[in-house]
């Protein structure tokens, strides 16, 4: 069969296409972005007419996917872990409505916070919603499991949560492809009331969900991904979840017989299997890439029936991603040790690209703010958050998508004047618009600067929903046209831009400044693509 060298993200994308996907919905977010990017670039997706436009945010993506599922077709939605917070309302309720066509929700967690503001574990959401959770161990399994995820979803009429973490999402390995499955046709749900969560219907469906969830523990497919391998004697027991299995094997490949291993790849876990492991050994080490979820369940509230080692007793660090060395130490093995990092090696934090428009904006803003005082600039999630670092040290908040607008408004309500919000164009259409509407209605005196680089920059330059729409959105939300300004953040406009910012900061009402200049990364890419296109047409 055909073999490809794929990132974990790409393996998931290819699998979904091969498993009869009709619609892919997502908002960019590291480490999940490449799933949609792969599907957008795929000739196979184009040929199959697979819907694959970016959504405004994870909630709209989740709901659109649910709608496609309602119409009987297979849909997938992908997001980073914190994106699932945004989609949570739709996600949790989709377990109660159930699905029609198969629905797979991919959530890519980022333990160690390589590119995130927390390291929340999406498996919690799976338990919370009471849906099957799948957690592949490697790229090939990620590919294969997607087929099972869609089948499970259609069998139980439930969405399936597909949880990966950074190291699988962004690691490449060879993947063997399977026979393709045809897309489903359009069909309505057999129960026309299924998606109507009026209390009387919801109560019935919720009760059914709670009983189905218990049945999932012994489902053949789910249980099939959880393998128990007995060792010799009463050796140490180890439970691994997802890719933690790889770090275990890295350490015990030549001494496997000394360990009883339960390798978990799908949830909820069969209790009998856990019991069979626990009965064989005196203590159990739990290795989870993320929160100590299985560990807490195993300990129980009283924590006295089984000797459990893991993140909660310090055998494994309480936070951060796992690696082979951490697992070696947890096993009591000698961890490899290279040389120390020489003391002259300096930190090299990310920074604005040379020539970035955000940098010119912050230069102007910082000079204006220097006269006003510190602690007044609320920012958001994107490249422009780097304004928090030297030399600007400008930004006083970065919490969640859209929070710059609403936090500035709240601070203004408290009497902080002026209060400034700096948000990117894509983040604004993701979750900033509703906050601006609130501020307009309350007439909170804030200055909102939308740093519009006409792309979703931090994740690598995906299409922004805001492009060419910001003026009409702001005016439509009720911003006074006299206080909707456009500036071009370039060095040559520096003094002029400072004047505009200064004037609007002194206005006791809502001002919106659109600081507009294309991301230099996408600009240079577009230029290259254009040149290549020209060359082609010449040939």
């Amino acid at each position, binding site marked *: 069969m055909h073999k490809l*060298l794929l990132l974990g993200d790409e393996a998931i994308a290819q699998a979904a296409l091969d498993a009869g996907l009709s619609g892919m919905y997502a908002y960019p977010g590291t480490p999940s972005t490449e799933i949609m990017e792969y599907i957008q670039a795929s000739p196979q997706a184009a040929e199959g007419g697979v819907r694959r436009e970016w959504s405004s945010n994870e909630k709209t993506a989740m709901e659109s996917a649910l709608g496609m599922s309602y119409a009987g077709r297979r849909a997938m939605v992908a997001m980073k872990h914190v994106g699932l917070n945004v989609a949570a309302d739709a996600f949790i309720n989709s377990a109660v409505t159930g699905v029609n066509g198969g629905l797979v929700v991919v959530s890519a967690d980022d333990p160690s916070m390589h590119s995130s503001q927390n390291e929340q574990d999406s498996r919690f959401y799976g338990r919370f919603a009471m849906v099957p959770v799948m957690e592949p161990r490697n790229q090939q399994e990620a590919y294969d499991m997607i087929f099972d995820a869609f089948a499970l979803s259609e069998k139980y009429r439930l969405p399936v949560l597909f949880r990966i973490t950074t190291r699988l999402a962004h690691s490449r390995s060879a993947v063997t492809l399977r026979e393709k499955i045809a897309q489903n046709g359009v069909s309505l749900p057999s129960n026309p009331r299924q998606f109507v969560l009026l209390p009387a219907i919801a109560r019935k469906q919720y009760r059914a969900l709670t009983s189905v969830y218990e049945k999932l523990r012994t489902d053949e497919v789910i249980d099939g991904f959880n393998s128990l391998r007995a060792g010799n004697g009463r050796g140490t027991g180890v439970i691994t979840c997802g890719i933690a299995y790889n770090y275990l094997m890295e350490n015990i490949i030549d001494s496997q017989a000394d360990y009883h291993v339960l390798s978990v790849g799908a949830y909820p876990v069969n209790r009998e299997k856990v019991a069979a492991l626990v009965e064989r050994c005196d203590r159990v080490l739990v290795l989870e890439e993320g929160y100590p979820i299985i560990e807490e369940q195993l300990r129980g509230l009283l924590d006295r029936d089984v000797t459990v080692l893991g993140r909660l007793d310090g055998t494994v660090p309480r936070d951060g991603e796992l690696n082979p060395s951490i697992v070696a130490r947890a096993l009591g093995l000698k961890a490899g040790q290279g040389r120390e990092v020489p003391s002259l090696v300096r930190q090299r934090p990310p920074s604005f690209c040379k020539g970035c428009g955000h940098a010119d904006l912050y230069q102007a803003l910082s000079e204006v703010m220097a006269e006003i005082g510190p602690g007044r600039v609320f920012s958001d999630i994107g490249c422009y958050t780097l304004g928090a670092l030297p030399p600007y040290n400008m930004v006083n908040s970065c919490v969640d998508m859209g929070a710059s607008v609403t936090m500035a408004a709240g601070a203004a309500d408290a009497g902080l004047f002026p209060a400034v919000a700096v948000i990117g164009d894509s983040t604004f259409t993701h979750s900033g618009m509703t906050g601006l509407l609130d501020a307009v209605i309350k007439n909170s005196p804030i200055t909102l600067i939308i740093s519009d680089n006409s792309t979703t920059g931090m994740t690598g330059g995906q299409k922004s929903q805001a492009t060419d729409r910001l003026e009409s959105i702001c005016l439509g939300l009720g911003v006074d046209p006299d206080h909707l300004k456009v500036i071009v953040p370039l060095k040559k406009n520096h003094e002029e831009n400072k004047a505009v910012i200064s004037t609007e900061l002194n206005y006791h009402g809502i001002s919106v400044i659109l600081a507009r200049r294309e991301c230099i990364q996408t600009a240079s890419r577009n230029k290259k693509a254009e040149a290549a296109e020209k060359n082609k047409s010449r040939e």
Partner: protein
Amino acid sequence: MKCDIILAGVGGQGILSIAATIGLAAVEQNLFLKQAEVHGMSQRGGDVQSHLRLSDREIFSDLIPHGGADLIISVEPMEALRYLPWLSDSGWLVTNSVPFVNISDYPEVGEVVAELGRAGNTIVLDADSIARDLGSARSGNMVILGAASSFISMPFKALEDAVRKMFGRKGEEMVEVNLKALRAGRDAAAAR
């Protein structure tokens, strides 16, 4: 056979083109391969690394254990030093000598080079100059790969074939330039 490689550099320097070339070659050699990359925030001028693992048997971990790397390939000298905790005692470090200075407290270049000298098995070369002399300032990455090629467990020809495949889409001229860079790197390393 196993060959564990740390690729190091600064976001935007293009270490992934080195990784992709070795990856292509490894697939042709029917080797098992895992290659963990850094995407996202660090790609904006921060330190980036890639763990590239080749083996003739199944590879489990996507990450190389501390003290386990056979080779560090770096396109920036200070970044090479950042990954010493991963290098095995017998491992080699091959790096470009040209610093990428985008921080205000970058150490004295002389001190960085001296520190590299203390790091054991090292090859330090000015890949930028070698590439410029060949008339293609942008193929420094292939010079570094060439310099490291004798420590990668596969025939040199496999890397050459991978370069052909990698750059074939961009035309014969690009292929030749990069092959020249690859060979120049190999020769420069051999001369030491």
